[in-house]
């Protein structure tokens, strides 16, 4: 087994790291204090080729694969996890259209999503819940000429700024996926959620009120939306959440490590104290094991394994990294003492971000169920 990144992956990692440090780093202070959606940075994601990194070249992507995707997201999250969360939502419709779309749909949407000209969202969760997509109450009725959609979706990341949204609705044949363009009559953005973390990325409700969807916007096969949705959420939603959690943990670990080396107690750095070393070691253990699981998951995706085949690997990686991120943040807060919850060190913000990663792509309970199902 070769655990080394190849030459291209190392070059990519260095490039993303430099980009994140130089272009996102200077914004962290402001984004944590007064969160806003930094559209300029999002455009840079498109310009540099991050968004479509796993999409074939013929559709505007770079075809570098899923490990490259994970490395990119991890490096961005190492500097600022909320901005990495952009990919968790934007790449969902990208994957859905790539895997289930017609040639016309792929040609129409994928190049613009890859370049960043379009922002995408995926609307599955409803006010009644998201862990059981098949319990959707949003309805799609066929009137012989078009689909008529009625319903509500909740906690939809990027809906407020999205140009295109993939969503699920129940037809007579079962759960089905559709595509809706921004500005379509009857498709409205509802109130914005106010989560404790990941605040730079907008999350809102969306409503369908006699929204007319043309037949060419049916995505995949009518009634086969459940499998497609689970596959998309697994392949993208959960894997991205794992990569973000990993990067976030590395970010917080670096802050704690640096603090331990500089803070003097009893005449020497607290790093020399056994309990501090033990805490840092625990953080390190979470990060290294999380990285192995996350990279393995992406590597298997690149080997052509389907999301269904990888369901357990993905669930394990997401569970370990996301729960691990909460532990790393909590331990770091303990280590920093009174400074732990100050704005200066940003760890409390990262803890909020870590908690908001838990439900992203499926809660930890769902991950545990998937592991042993």
């Amino acid at each position: 087994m070769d655990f080394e990144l190849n030459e291209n992956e190392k070059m990519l990692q260095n490039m993303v790291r430099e980009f994140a440090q130089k272009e996102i780093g200077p914004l962290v202070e402001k984004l944590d204090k007064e969160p806003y959606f930094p559209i300029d940075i999002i455009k840079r994601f498109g310009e540099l080729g991050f968004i479509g990194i796993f999409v074939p070249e013929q559709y505007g992507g770079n075809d570098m694969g899923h490990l490259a995707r994970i490395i990119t997201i991890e490096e961005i999250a190492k500097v600022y996890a909320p901005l990495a969360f952009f990919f968790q939502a934007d790449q969902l419709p990208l994957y859905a259209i790539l895997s289930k779309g017609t040639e016309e749909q792929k040609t129409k949407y994928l190049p613009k999503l890859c370049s960043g000209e379009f922002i995408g969202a995926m609307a599955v969760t409803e006010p009644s819940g998201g862990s059981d997509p098949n319990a959707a109450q949003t309805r799609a009725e066929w009137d012989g000429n078009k689909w008529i959609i009625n319903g509500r979706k909740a906690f939809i990341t990027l809906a407020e700024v999205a140009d295109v949204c993939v969503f699920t609705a129940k037809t007579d044949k079962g759960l089905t996926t559709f595509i809706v363009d921004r500005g379509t009559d009857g498709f409205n953005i509802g109130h914005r959620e106010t989560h404790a973390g990941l605040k730079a990325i907008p999350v809102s409700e969306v409503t369908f009120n006699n929204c007319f969807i043309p037949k060419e916007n049916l995505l995949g096969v009518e009634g086969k939306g459940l499998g497609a949705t689970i596959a998309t959420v697994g392949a993208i939603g959960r894997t991205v959440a794992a990569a973000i959690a990993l990067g976030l943990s590395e970010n917080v670990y670096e802050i704690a490590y640096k603090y331990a080396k500089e803070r003097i107690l009893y005449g020497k750095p607290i790093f020399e104290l056994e309990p501090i070393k033990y805490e840092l070691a625990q953080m390190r253990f979470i990060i290294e094991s999380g990285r192995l699981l996350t990279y393995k998951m992406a590597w298997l995706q690149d080997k052509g394994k389907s999301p269904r085949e990888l369901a357990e690997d993905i669930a394990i990686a997401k569970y370990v990294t996301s729960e691990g991120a909460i532990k790393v943040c909590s331990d770091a807060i303990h280590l920093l003492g009174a400074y732990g919850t100050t704005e200066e060190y940003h760890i409390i913000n990262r803890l909020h971000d870590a908690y908001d990663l838990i439900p992203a792509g499926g809660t930890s309970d769902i991950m545990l169920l998937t592991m042993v199902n």
Partner: protein
Amino acid sequence: MNIIVLVKQIPDSEYFSKLQLDPVKHSLIREGIPAVINPADKCAIELAISLKKHHSFKVIAVSMGPEATKNSLKEAIAMGCDEAILITGKEFAGADTLATSYALSQAIIKIHSYSMVIAGNVALDGSTGQTPIQVGEFLDIPSITNINSLSYHKVDNTADISRIFRGVEQHMKVVEMPFLVTVSQNFNKPHLPSVMDIIKASKKDIVTWGIRDINADKNQCGIKGSPTETISTTIYKNEREKVVIIGADKDAVKIFVDNIKKWLIV
């Protein structure tokens, strides 16, 4: 028409504190430390790419070093260089700036046709700033250091160059090609290659030249060709010496004054 860019791979300055000295060779142990393109050389690449875009130059990156230097040359190609050449071989090991300059100039002579050579003014690991100027001397071409701007005019094949130092701006006109310029790491803001640039660069081969390829005299290369030799190296550590003076009488004041005199503060 070609532009040649001199590129050096150095240890990442973020890790300078972790560098250790080889007690025998008095040189830095670079293994295990991430390597990057010298920052001023990246600015040199950026200038060359800008000239390429406006005037259709072909840009060739040239470096001397071990096999691992290819990673930096791949990055140079990802940034937009058309070709990259690595001068490598055991004969070049241990070279000081003179031997390095000789080898680089021999490679440039082999390339033969070029309008200008662009280089970073100083490499962060050695900080001598000698190599580019020595290359200019070996090539017997005009060299202008630490330029502030460069405008090339295709119509008459000339270049306007400015330098700024001590509040004075010098303007120069180069009327005869080729020439050599150096730039600092603040000259411009090098762009980041995109993912597609990285993929395209991965498909290009790096040309490697040995001592015979560049027709170099082995006595002017490597340790043999290095008139300078490092005989010792000291790493300075910043430490705080704490002196506690208790009291405010004459004796205490004398201790205070003696200490600040000792450290030459006054």
